[in-house]
């Protein structure tokens, strides 16, 4: 196979990746997008395997491809079960696969370094440095994110004095060593120190990140993993890697910007702000709330013309989405218009709620984006909040001194009646009291989300709870 033919394959592969992302923009064409992506990857892998033909002719086919074959089998054996995880585990799975992607880039960079040192020109060594630092820091950072999402590690942010100074010094040291290596690539000892520092920095970067910031951080890690693949393209002079890596990098970047905007915060604030620590010492005054039983809640819902459900991470934790779907069926069969208002940062990764509700077979045209939901809200009879808190807190609109002031929220307080399913009166991730709960039109439904929705459904079905 001539090298030109392989270049053509790579070019076709790059085109496939662009088309794949383009078709993913809307549901009707999205599946076509995935198929195109698969074709792109097959072309790339096929082309690369052909690139090894001269080696195979010299050393024998089996000898050349044996390790690749084994790795293919092992990778597929791990990859398939990882794709079969339930949708509630998608954030963890995504974090873990960012780790694998970044690890691959880091390892290839390391191998390239040892194969070529000390004959590395400055440009190649510079690209190698970027690839390796980004690859290894994303590797440990993604593993940490996985640990927090899987709740192996404590999910609340851990902060200490001088944390940002320490973190930035570790990162700066790693980059400085990288810069030194550009001039003196033969220094293998320093090379290992650079890798170690990048690994440590990845861990330290995630320690102060709380659960509510995970959507932004996952998106950012997505971007880093792409950029390290991109840097590999510069090292190997491979244009396909540059294109695919840049697509991935820009995707992660856009998603993290969307997440930041949805929380009215900046990148630096997310990474270095230590947001989500429970702020104690607020007013602890006792205020009264109205609570309601499943029967009363059912009566309100049944009498409504339109219901807007606002799901949050609590719904995912309680695994309540299938009960919610039963409720949706019951109300829809009574002619109630039920819709779901999705805040961009609801859940633990971008789009998390949509996937959960789609898994529960709720038609996707009933899932409404925040802006559209807010237009409809004044006409809504009942807003039912399930496991969401800060994204519905009117303090974001009204209280200038609130930490979440300026964050776009779903205006549930404009609905005629508000119902909140909540386990207790404990504040949410941001640790901020929610005035919404004390409104006259608000009914608190205390209990586990899955349990409570199940009881409402039972009442609607005509049984007793």
């Amino acid at each position, binding site marked *: 196979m001539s090298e030109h033919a392989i270049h053509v394959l790579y070019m076709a592969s790059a085109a496939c*990746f*662009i088309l794949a*992302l*383009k078709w*993913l*923009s809307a*549901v009707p064409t999205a599946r076509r997008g*995935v198929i195109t992506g*698969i074709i792109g*990857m097959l072309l*790339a*892998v096929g082309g*690369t395997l052909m690139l*090894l033909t001269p*080696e195979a002719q010299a050393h024998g086919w089996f000898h050349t491809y044996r*390790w690749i074959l*084994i*790795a*293919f089998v092992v*990778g*597929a054996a791990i*990859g*398939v079960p*990882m*794709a079969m995880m339930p*949708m509630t585990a998608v954030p963890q*799975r*995504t974090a873990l696969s960012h780790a*694998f992607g970044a690890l*691959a880039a880091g*390892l*290839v960079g390391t*191998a390239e370094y040892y*194969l070529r040192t000390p004959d590395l*020109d400055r*440009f*190649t060594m510079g690209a190698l440095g970027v690839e390796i630092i980004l690859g290894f820091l994303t590797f440990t950072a993604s593993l940490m994110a996985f640990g927090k999402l899987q709740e192996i590690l404590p999910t609340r942010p851990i902060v200490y004095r001088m944390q940002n100074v320490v973190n930035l010094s570790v990162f700066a040291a790693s980059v400085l060593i990288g810069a030194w290596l550009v001039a003196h690539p033969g220094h293998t000892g320093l090379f290992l120190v650079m890798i170690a520092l990048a690994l440590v920095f990845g861990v330290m970067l995630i320690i102060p990140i709380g659960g509510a910031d995970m959507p932004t951080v996952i998106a950012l890690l997505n971007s880093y993993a792409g950029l390290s*693949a*991109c840097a590999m393209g510069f090292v190997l*002079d*491979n244009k396909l890697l540059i294109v695919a*890596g*840049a*697509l*991935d*990098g*820009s995707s*992660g*970047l856009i998603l993290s910007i969307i997440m930041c905007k949805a929380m009215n915060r900046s990148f630096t604030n997310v990474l270095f702000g230590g947001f989500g620590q429970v702020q104690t010492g607020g007013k602890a005054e006792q205020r009264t709330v109205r609570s309601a039983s499943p029967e009363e809640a059912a009566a309100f819902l049944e009498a409504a013309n339109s219901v807007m459900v606002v799901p949050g991470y609590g719904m995912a934790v309680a695994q309540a989405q299938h009960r919610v779907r039963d409720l949706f*069926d019951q109300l*829809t*069969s009574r002619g109630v218009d039920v819709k779901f208002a999705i805040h961009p940062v609801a859940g633990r990764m*971008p*789009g998390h709620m*949509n*996937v959960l509700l789609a*898994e529960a*077979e709720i038609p*996707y045209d009933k*899932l409404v984006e925040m802006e559209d939901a807010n237009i409809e809200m004044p006409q809504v009879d009942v807003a039912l909040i399930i496991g969401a808190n800060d994204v519905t807190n009117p303090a974001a609109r009204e209280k200038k001194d609130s930490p979440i002031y300026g964050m776009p929220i779903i205006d549930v307080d404009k609905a005629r009646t508000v119902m909140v399913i909540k386990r207790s009166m404990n504040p949410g991730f941001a640790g901020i009291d929610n005035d919404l709960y004390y409104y006259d039109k608000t009914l608190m439904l205390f209990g586990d989300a899955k349990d409570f929705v199940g009881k409402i459904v039972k009442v609607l079905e005509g049984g007793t709870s």
Partner: protein
Amino acid sequence: MQSELLPLLYIFLLATFVGLEVIRRVSPLLHTPLMSLTNAISAIAVVGSIVIAGKQETTLSTVLGTVAVAASMINIVGGYLITYRMLRMFKKRETKQP
């Protein structure tokens, strides 16, 4: 592999702009599948890994290359499969009557 830096930078620049434009249009409904798909695409690192694992120049490079191929393969297989699974769940209308 002495390469010309400028053409590569041009490609990077253009691909980034294409990426920004294409991905800006993705509906928020599909942000999770988008992330798993880009994750699978970023496993394009497999290209570099395969060459290293195939050439087997040193023991170290063979080991690193093989692990890298396996890690990329996890993302390729897992990433495309879960994206496809997710997209199959997005249905517009009920088919069965309650």
